[in-house]
């Protein structure tokens, strides 16, 4: 039978705050249909990083959405930005995740940079031609990020950086790196954030990781061997780095959650079209309650996940505390993506298990969302501590 995936995904009913936002979502869907959807399977199969696709998104203004207009952003609320990410993820997770990582990587300068640093760096970072990366995790420390060991030693008007950063999304192809390194003693207070030029001598990206999925997304270690970083690239002052990292991740987690909603929706779209066509026992399999209920549960969980993501985003947009709500959204949306992609493989039966149908890839891709930007165990730690009065992790 023919693959139903070529059909355009049905529109999701959205309550958008402005007419402007409606236009923006329309543009995102148009580019996602025209540029992302036709390339995703091929680039993923070959493991090629789609740099040109990011340029197209950048020129259309989709790489700077939640940042101020005065620096080249589009001043869009997070609520709107996240729905753009969701629409992109529905066509190609690697690209949507890349947009989320880039947006996260602009946060330290936008939020903690001095006026002078913002004027100097932000217009290029938000200009659409550049991609950023965020270097917090290390080979020996992911969840316990405050234990990081990469050192940045002050030397005149420079820092000299030595150490290894792990799992850097866009590692080796980014145009700027947010580096979290130790300038002081142990613990979170000893950590600072530096904006590093990828052309710095001594900064050596390692071979890309060979991942279970997200093959078109490049993830690499970065080795820093006495890399000199000018002191005027220190963001937010010495010792503020860990706070910057956590604040950035609060927003970043919502980006991951939006990716999860888009991926799950994509799996559901595909499985619904398949179930309506595939016949067994003389009827479309969608007519069997056992299959129909799988689809119904998936649709319900996706709607719940989307609502959770947007409700956390609206708190953020209103300037209210949102980090615990972001943790809940990330936890629920990514667990939902895992469950839904698993179930949608089931809906396709044997055909779900082979690369001829994209649900096989969606299933592999979903897994990473439960791990990045704080594993779902760490999200539960954040939520539990907030409930019982403990401090942040």
């Amino acid at each position: 039978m023919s693959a139903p995936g070529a059909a355009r995904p049905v529109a999701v009913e959205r309550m958008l705050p402005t007419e402007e936002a409606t236009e923006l979502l329309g543009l995102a869907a148009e580019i996602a249909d025209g540029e992302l959807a036709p390339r995703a399977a091929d680039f993923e199969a070959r493991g090629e990083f789609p740099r040109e696709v990011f340029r197209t998104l950048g020129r259309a203004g989709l790489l700077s959405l939640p940042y101020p207009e005065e620096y080249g952003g589009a001043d869009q609320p997070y609520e709107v930005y996240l729905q753009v990410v969701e629409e992109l993820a529905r066509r190609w997770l690697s690209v949507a995740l890349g947009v989320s990582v880039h947006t996260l990587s602009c946060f330290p300068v936008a939020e903690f940079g001095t006026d002078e640093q913002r004027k100097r760096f932000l217009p290029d970072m938000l200009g659409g031609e550049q991609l950023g990366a965020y270097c917090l995790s290390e080979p020996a420390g992911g969840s316990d990020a405050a234990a990081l060991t990469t050192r940045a030693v002050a030397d005149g008007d420079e820092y000299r950086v030595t150490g290894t950063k792990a799992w850097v999304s866009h590692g080796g192809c980014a145009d700027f790196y947010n580096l979290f390194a130790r300038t002081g003693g142990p613990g979170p207070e000893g950590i600072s954030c530096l904006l590093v030029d990828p052309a710095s001598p001594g900064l050596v990206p390692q071979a890309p990781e060979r991942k279970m999925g997200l093959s078109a997304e490049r993830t690499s270690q970065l080795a820093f061997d006495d890399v000199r970083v000018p002191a005027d690239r220190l963001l937010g002052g010495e010792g503020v780095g860990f706070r910057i990292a956590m604040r950035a991740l609060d927003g970043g987690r919502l980006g991951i959650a939006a990716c999860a909603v888009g991926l799950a929706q994509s799996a559901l779209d595909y499985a619904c079209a398949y179930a309506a066509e595939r016949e067994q026992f003389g009827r479309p399999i969608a007519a069997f309650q056992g299959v129909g209920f799988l689809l119904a549960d998936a649709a319900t969980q996706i709607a719940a996940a989307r609502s959770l993501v947007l409700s956390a985003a609206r708190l953020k947009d209103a300037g209210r505390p949102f980090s615990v709500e972001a943790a809940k959204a990330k936890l629920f949306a990514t667990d939902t993506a895992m469950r839904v992609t698993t179930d949608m493989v089931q809906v396709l039966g044997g055909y779900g298990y082979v690369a001829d149908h994209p649900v096989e890839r969606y299933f592999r891709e979903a897994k990473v969302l439960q791990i990045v930007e704080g594993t779902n165990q760490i999200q539960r730690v954040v939520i539990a501590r907030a409930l019982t009065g403990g401090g942040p992790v």
Partner: protein
Amino acid sequence: MKIVVLVKQVPDSGAERTLKSDDFTVDRGSASNVINEMDEYAIEEALRIKEAQGGEVTILTVGPDGATESIRKALSMGPDAAVHVVDGAIAGSDAVQTSAVLAAALGTLEWDLVLCGAEATDGRVQVIPHMLAERLGVPALTGARKLTIDGDSRTIERQTDEGYEVVRADGKAVVSVWDTINEPRYPSFKGIMAAKKKPVTTLSLADLGLAPDTVGLANAYSAVVSAAPRPARQAGTRVTDEGEGGVQLVEFLAVEKFV
């Protein structure tokens, strides 16, 4: 350089399209309407010329009220302004009449170059650029896959089945383009917002000094007298190879005049 780009709104060629059963004109009401695909290449080419040499790009559309949507979409790619000729009497006009309306509208504008798509995906008659150039008394450089502007001279590579021809003209000209000429940009978010504020001038036949009885279906030079839906695809011929398969294939190709 002042460039006018002709933009036509057409029914989406990717969707089901129909003719009205009474007068055989294109059913625009039920279709999802879009910018004629080839026109997007003309817009892109105009924007590239403007980006390289400065100037102004104006969209010119003859079409019903609903064409406003396509005009805004065209403007969101970057042109500066638009002119929309809209008049109930124009409905059903043929190419001869439409070219007269376009020529009259161009008479109200200052321009150095007219760019347009080599065909529209609805009528596919491909004659508007030639007719318009004739009416304007300027050269027609049609079917371009490449356009070079050098001072006053405009040179195109005209795409043909065998290759291309180099055609040159000086001064004002009408240039039509194929989809091989460039890769049109997507609108940007900022472009979409800016397009809402760009001037769109609406002109009627009276504004152009054209009499209503020179245009429209009733006065058209050509008429569609009958139309039938495309027949369902035939089953085709199956060749079973019993030692003679190759010969049978060649015979089939010969009968169909492929070889």
